[in-house]
């Protein structure tokens, strides 16, 4: 079997900053600039916010088990739906997938000792906890923002002004964090690859992070602009979005969605990267169509900037826009399809190991096929007009964000936990976690499509009694999902303390992060590694002489 090998070439350690041998527990609560510490900070923080957002979801589903508003007050329900969306997007998936996995893995995958701008990196992380505190504070000063995560004016300008302002400030902070992180990723990947690594010898996760970072840099400032204008409208008497004083409510929607549609790609592109890492390792096969997957990430990044109006088909949208954005939205299905087919082809002819990481990756693949197909139906304006702002949309985006992003984060955790902690997660417990999550996801989000098409709008605390039965089914599914996280969190905490020792490369993987200790030493390697084979050279004879596309590798610089 092909094994990852590193030729040890004497290179001077480029650290020597008087670091200790190992970080202590309290180092994780400081302004530490080690990318691995920052990655763990992001992951742990985001997993805590995941519990908060999930708790809100459970309360909302309890409310929706009956047609009347009889468990939460309607105002509180709206505050929960707003903050559930906000937390799950901005404080769970984005920080976990980009901040957590990105920061931890990128330098290890490209043979760097750290990110390009370590202090900027620490600053980017430390913008997140205060944002969470601002959201928490918004509940104690006015009952939380209540205008949905989209916060459309005029509603957001006349409802719960102080919490709404705090909400805007929190989002500006996480947006700033996202921009700082993106600059860091781009420079790191561009400039700090080990000298022998060409662009097309990078692991696909790095390509996904390039696409993600470019997208975040283009889109995020626009959200900041929208939110600053909204803060001015609420607090300082301006009227950018006030129709009775010359403002325009549709302008906000354009600014908001110019960021927030790309935001869904920010949440899924890193996950695509994780899929491209996990599947080849556990299927024991080279990734099928390396270049197609790499370039399709860039294509999604490019096309993803030109589809935002599909969120506004029923709003103040001119006919030509409805048509243009129908076509552009449908086009996104092509590069996404390429990825799906390539991963499926990677499974074909492999020696598939049923590890929990692989189960979640394949589960993601199944879910994403369904979520992607419902996404195509939503791309077509005539049908979208019927189901826009209904539970069909809620079902669709939970399929791709929970069945996609969250499954991907789980797969990543099961795959890289041995590297991060040096210990293995418990596999039987992992399989219990997978089964509960898979069943819960199907039961929770599939009936939502029926509800939406039959006439149930989203964001309602009370609904027509004819929808009660399906809603009860969805609520049962949500409870199963709530239970499903218990074995996972227990597994992580217990294994981190008592799990079996992993060793440097428990999966026999080929990418560079597996060539160092688990957990890696403070500057990652005693001596910098030299590339001897491609990242996915499974089953190849003379694996040390060819790259991912079968070409001879560049000669290492001496």
């Amino acid at each position: 079997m092909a094994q990852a090998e590193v030729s040890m070439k004497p290179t001077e350690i480029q650290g020597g900053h008087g670091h200790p041998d190992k970080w202590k527990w309290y180092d994780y609560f400081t302004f530490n600039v080690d990318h691995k510490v920052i990655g763990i900070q992001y992951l742990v923080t985001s997993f805590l916010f995941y519990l908060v957002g999930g708790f809100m979801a459970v309360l909302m589903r309890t409310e929706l088990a009956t047609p009347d508003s009889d468990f939460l007050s309607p105002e509180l329900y709206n505050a929960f739906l707003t903050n559930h969306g906000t937390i799950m997007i901005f404080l769970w998936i984005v920080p976990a997938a980009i901040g957590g996995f990105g920061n931890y893995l990128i330098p290890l995958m490209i043979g760097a000792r750290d990110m390009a701008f370590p202090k900027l990196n620490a600053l980017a992380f430390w913008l997140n906890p205060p944002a969470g505190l601002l959201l928490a504070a918004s509940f104690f000063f006015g009952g939380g923002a209540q205008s949905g995560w989209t916060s459309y004016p005029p509603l957001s300008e006349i409802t719960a002004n102080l919490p709404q302002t705090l909400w805007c400030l929190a989002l500006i902070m996480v947006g700033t964090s996202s921009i700082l992180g993106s600059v860091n990723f781009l420079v790191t990947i561009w400039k700090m690859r080990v000298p022998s690594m060409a662009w097309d010898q990078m692991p696909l996760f790095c390509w996904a992070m390039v696409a993600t970072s470019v997208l975040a840099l283009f889109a995020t400032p626009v959200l900041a602009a929208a939110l600053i204008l909204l803060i001015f409208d609420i607090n300082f008497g301006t009227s950018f979005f006030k129709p009775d004083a010359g403002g325009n409510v549709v302008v906000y929607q354009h600014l908001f969605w110019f960021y927030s549609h790309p935001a869904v790609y920010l949440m899924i592109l890193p996950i695509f990267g994780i899929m491209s890492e996990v599947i080849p390792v556990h299927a024991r096969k080279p990734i099928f169509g390396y270049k197609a997957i790499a370039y399709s990430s860039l294509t999604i990044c490019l096309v993803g900037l030109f589809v935002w109006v599909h969120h506004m088909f029923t709003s103040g949208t001119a006919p030509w826009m409805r048509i243009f954005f129908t076509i552009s939205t449908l086009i996104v299905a092509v590069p996404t399809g390429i990825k799906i087919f390539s991963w499926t082809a990677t499974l074909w002819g492999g020696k598939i190991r049923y590890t929990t990481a692989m189960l979640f990756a394949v589960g993601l693949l199944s879910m994403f096929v369904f979520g992607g197909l419902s996404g195509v139906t939503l791309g077509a304006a005539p049908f979208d007009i019927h189901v826009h702002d209904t539970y069909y949309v809620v079902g669709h985006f939970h399929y791709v964000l929970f069945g996609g992003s969250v499954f991907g984060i789980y797969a990543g955790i099961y795959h890289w936990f041995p590297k991060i902690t040096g210990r293995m997660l418990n596999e039987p417990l992992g399989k219990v976690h997978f089964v509960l999550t898979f069943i819960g996801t199907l039961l929770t989000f599939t009936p939502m499509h029926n509800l939406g098409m039959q006439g149930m709008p989203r964001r309602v605390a009370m609904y027509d009694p004819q929808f009660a039965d399906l809603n009860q089914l969805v609520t049962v599914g949500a409870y199963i999902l709530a239970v499903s996280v218990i074995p996972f969190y227990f597994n992580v905490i217990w294994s981190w303390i008592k799990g079996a020792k992993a060793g440097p490369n428990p999966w026999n993987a080929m990418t560079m992060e597996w060539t160092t200790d688990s957990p890696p030493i403070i500057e990652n390697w005693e001596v910098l590694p030299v590339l001897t084979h491609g990242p996915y050279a499974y089953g190849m004879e003379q694996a040390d002489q060819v790259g991912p596309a079968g070409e001879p590798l560049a000669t290492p610089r001496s």
Partner: protein
Amino acid sequence: MKQIPAPFWTLVLGIAVTLISLWVGQNHHLLPVQASEQAPLVDDLFNVMVTIGTALFIVVQGAIVYSLIRFRQPKGDDTDGLPIEGNLPLEAFWTAIPAVIVVGLGLYSVVVFQEMGGFSPGGHHGQGAMMAMAPQPSVIDVAPLIAQTEAGEDVYSKTQVYGFGASPLVQMNQPDVTVNVTGMQYAWIFRYPGTGITDGELHIPVGQDVQLKIEAQDVIHSFWVPQFRLKQDALPGEPAELRFVATREGTYPVVCAELCGAYHGGMRTQVIVHSAEDYAAWVASRVAEAAPTTAVAQSAVDATDAEYLAKIAPELAKASVQIAQSTPTHP
């Protein structure tokens, strides 16, 4: 015994997947009854997408499940799988097929959109281009509420109108019935110009060309009748229109689809599609200010919205929305 050749199995599977997909596309029963001329157009588009989606779903999931079973790691086998890194013809094939499908769906969507009247809201034929605007006496460039406009002053001729207009077949015709629809927290108000009728429910005749002029008074609302497959946001300061022909008598829900505040979920009323005779009788009874149907009759002239709403609020709260039979009418 000789083995059956693989192409034969492929052909059989292909035919089976095609037949299953076609059946699912026509028999999914996911959508409510069709009650407007636009509804069959939308449903046919959806059925095509369901057919294609089912085929893709079966093929991809089938490949995944087959791989998981057929290519699982044998016990004690630590070797790697086949070192296949790509296959250009195959990759070109699975890039081209979805590309052709989405272009086809895009073109089909445009055709459906045109037939629904999507290119002519506000009676414009400039496909969304801004019309030259007459100078307005006010300093703001926001259209006044329809409810506040002087007689003879037409907001719709001055600004961009959103929504759905007349279908291409009747573009030059005036609508048979026009209703001004105002959304406010948390009710819909329906005014019938020239008759003095104001109601909390929408009454329209079957088979006639109806034009709704939609606006919002406070925040964004969204007018949606699931059985009509039509939805349009009511935007403060932005006039919008929905023009349609109801094809089926009955009572259908009118739902607000845009988050508009705490009681957004309670912002529900109904549209009653009458026969022509019943509608005429209803109008006559309301004009004569005879006994109201469900809501309180009141002249719109001498009542503010707040006064009007205060009177009908108890009725609105009690009104249980009857939902039309949700048995789809698939041919």
